[in-house]
């Protein structure tokens, strides 16, 4: 950077510190999870959430981080068949469970009917909320294979989207359900 050093001179107070490594704030916790059918053994910090672990430890970044307080639904996953906001579940609490994320919906690269319906109906715009929408919709269809529009809207009420008017998302879930029934 020698040729431009003057332009972004950093003043003395900002010297870069080196050497120290981050402390472990508390004792780490060993956990076992089955994630999308694959057994995983991990050692996690007790305060880290399932969302943290999925994204940062397992590299499963399909699950999105937005509000981090269980209000937006972007981080929705399934634990033992029930949807949860993974930002509200400590990773240690998920010990021994089976977790399904958006990465677990397609099989061998082939989209599930629900995923395909999202693409076909134009339900996907920016796509950031879509993993959460898909997980909530997937859970709905597992419980109730033939929902009506009102039930779909109720099931997706915790998944915020800012791009869409939700209509195409609801249509996609209904179409996915029909395909499901075929």
């Amino acid at each position: 950077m020698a040729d431009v050093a003057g332009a972004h001179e950093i003043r003395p107070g900002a010297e870069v510190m080196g050497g120290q490594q981050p402390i472990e704030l508390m004792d780490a916790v060993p956990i076992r999870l089955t994630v999308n059918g694959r057994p995983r053994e991990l050692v996690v910090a007790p305060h880290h959430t399932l969302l943290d672990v999925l994204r940062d430890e397992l590299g499963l970044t399909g699950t999105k981080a937005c509000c981090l307080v269980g209000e937006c639904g972007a981080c929705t996953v399934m634990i033992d068949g029930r949807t949860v906001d993974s930002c509200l579940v400590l990773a240690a609490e998920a010990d021994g469970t089976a977790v399904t994320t958006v990465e677990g919906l397609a099989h061998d690269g082939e989209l599930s009917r629900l995923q395909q319906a999202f693409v076909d109906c134009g339900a996907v715009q920016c796509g950031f909320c879509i993993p959460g929408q898909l997980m909530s919709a997937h859970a709905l269809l597992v419980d109730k294979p033939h929902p009506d529009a009102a039930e779909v809207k109720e099931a997706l009420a915790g998944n915020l989207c800012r791009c869409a008017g939700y209509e195409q998302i609801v249509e996609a879930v209904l179409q996915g359900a029909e395909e499901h029934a075929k």
Partner: protein
Amino acid sequence: MTSIGTSTPRSGGYERVTGTQRFLADIPIADVLHVKLVTLDCARARIVAIDTSAARQVPGVRLVMTASDLPQPVPRFGPQFKDRPVLADRETKYHGEPVAAVAAETEDAAAEAARLVAVEYEELPAVFTVAGALDPGAPLVREPALRPDDPLAGSNVLRVHRFGWGDVDGTSADLVLENTYRFPMVTQFAIEPHGFMAAPDGDGLTCWSTIQHPYQLQRALATILGLPLAKVRVVAPDLGGGFGGKQSPKFEPLVAFMALAAGRPVRLVLTLEETFQAVRRATAEIRVRTGFMRDGTLAFQDVRSDFLIGAYADTADRIVAKSNYVACGPYRVPAARIVARSILSHTTPSCAMRGIGTPQVNWAVESNLDEGARRLGIDGLALRLRNLPRHGEQFIPGDAPADGDWAQVVGRAAELIDWNGPLAAGHGRGIACGLKAGPTSGLSYATVRLLADGSVLVYAGTSEMGQGARTVFAQIAANELGVPPERVTVVMGDTSLVPFDLQTSASRSTVFMGTAIVRACADLLEQLRTRLSQAEGPAATAISVDKGKVTIAEREVSLADALRIALGKLGGELVGNGEMRRDGQAGHPLGGMPAFYEFNCTAVEGRVDEETGEIVINRYVSVGDVGRALNPAHVRGQDEGSAVMGLGHTLMEHYILDDGGRIRNLGAIDYRIPTSLDLPEEMHSEYVENEDGPGPYGAKGVGEGATLCVAPAVAAAVCSATGVVIRDLPLSPERVWTALQAQGRAAELASDSSPEHLRDEGQARPVPVGKGNSR
């Protein structure tokens, strides 16, 4: 078979439903440091001292940066004014403005250290309302020293914009109606929080950002760091929504300085709360004085708009100018006087948001039309149709004429809402028009490579943020070259790969970049023709290349065969370049005429739950004038999303500030945007296609129109259903209920002797007959 006009599946749709689409926060960067901002819990403060010693002791902390660690004077940046410091410089000017930043090996360590940065500060009086900012004794938001030679430097008024024509004061009207309308502070709330990363890169820098304008960011960083443009690479991964909030640089200069100081990559992903504090739409108080003739013909408009922008200008002042320039809406208005002020305040810097200022102005002006219509006993639809210009008719003197059949759009909306049909008891209808001026200038370059196997790469500096530019560009290139869209890959979002594009804003990309792509394809096909001529020799005159259909001496040749002939033994590729330039016009109040208008008509049927004040929308209709829908599913998605975003500011969204100027509803539930349970019972979005736009195949820009006039249409329906007039947004249950109660009390007081069936909050000052200058 062309894909133009078909709902071609979204490019990147597969990735987005499988979780493999990489948004900024999903991009792994080796050896990265995590950044956490240090902020104060007040709007405005004098920073006395910052003690970073405890923070530095946290294991894993590598850097703590304050303003004093930056070059002095602290570098400032901004798209219109260079007024925003990289970190707060001696004084914070809005709730959430960072005073320091920590970089550490882990997010935990960064968070812990940020908490331990001890800031000694003195809270100072702040202004966060129009009245407060305009008070002669108000503290000045921007230091006068930063406003040399500015006669307004001693006030919080940043700029005053004056537009108009005709003689308002000399124009007679049968009815003059003056009212003031208010629009709240709302925020873009892209579901993807804003994120920024930077890394030293050889003798330059790479910056990753959730940014709509990567080239604007490149220039900002090069300027502030003193680097050549070629040494600053900006990567803009596909955005998880933008809506204007991600147009201009925010914390990229900070992470750039931190990366260079640390000599390592750094990463800052804002929390949702921090995002709320970083971007918002301007609030506005708009006084409208409208002169009507008895038959509903408009005589004049006299508009005074006060936009409360934030602590730093960002693009806010431009927004004030552009939206108020079309304050009179899509109507013939013989005389107009528009005075619009951008007013600084100690609040989150406001910036572009879908519709850029037009929803605020439109709320006021359209609502006043409805108030006039009611007093004149004229139907709101009839009043609008009476004043709507015909296609090709100039309605703003000296400016671009009406570029669509707007009466057709309004007529279709009226038909879909069954405007003259019977209404159930307690139901009401409202209709409103919205007009937004499109881009006034622009410059987009595109490069198209036709590879040896007939597949295609398109390079475009537009940012994909959900609007579907990537898909539409693939459709355009596919159509021009005669290949299927799935053979086209569109490369975007990296200034080291794609040529310059001015902006991804103002619904411009289909028109501007789309045209550049059409031209790049034409350039490429011309080269193909030349190469074929050279290869074929004497038969050259009989070669024709039209949208990928190649004939040589009346023999049709597949594109693959033509490429084989043209490229010869060595293979290779053809590279075409295209440019779409629209220079502004000197002397034009906005710097240039709009390339197109976005016109929308929204119609609503609804009722009010009198127990709770909740508005129930039974039927919602939005009709846009799109020229040509290149991808109907995308157009629908944009229009419905735009409409529902409009329902947000109409029904529920607003920042709640406490008496110190702190935002008290930071967060998804406390702020509240529409969910799947807040939708109209029925929603119909349609568009009119007359292929009369300036873009490829007659397209116009879409995506903002449907948010422009939601509020006045809903408010008109509420008035039609209940008789109450509300001039402040949002039309929250509390506000509607309160208005209903006041109406009930007023009715009791007046017993049943009042001749007027309409009552309002007592704000209107109707003058039955008067001249424009009567008050």
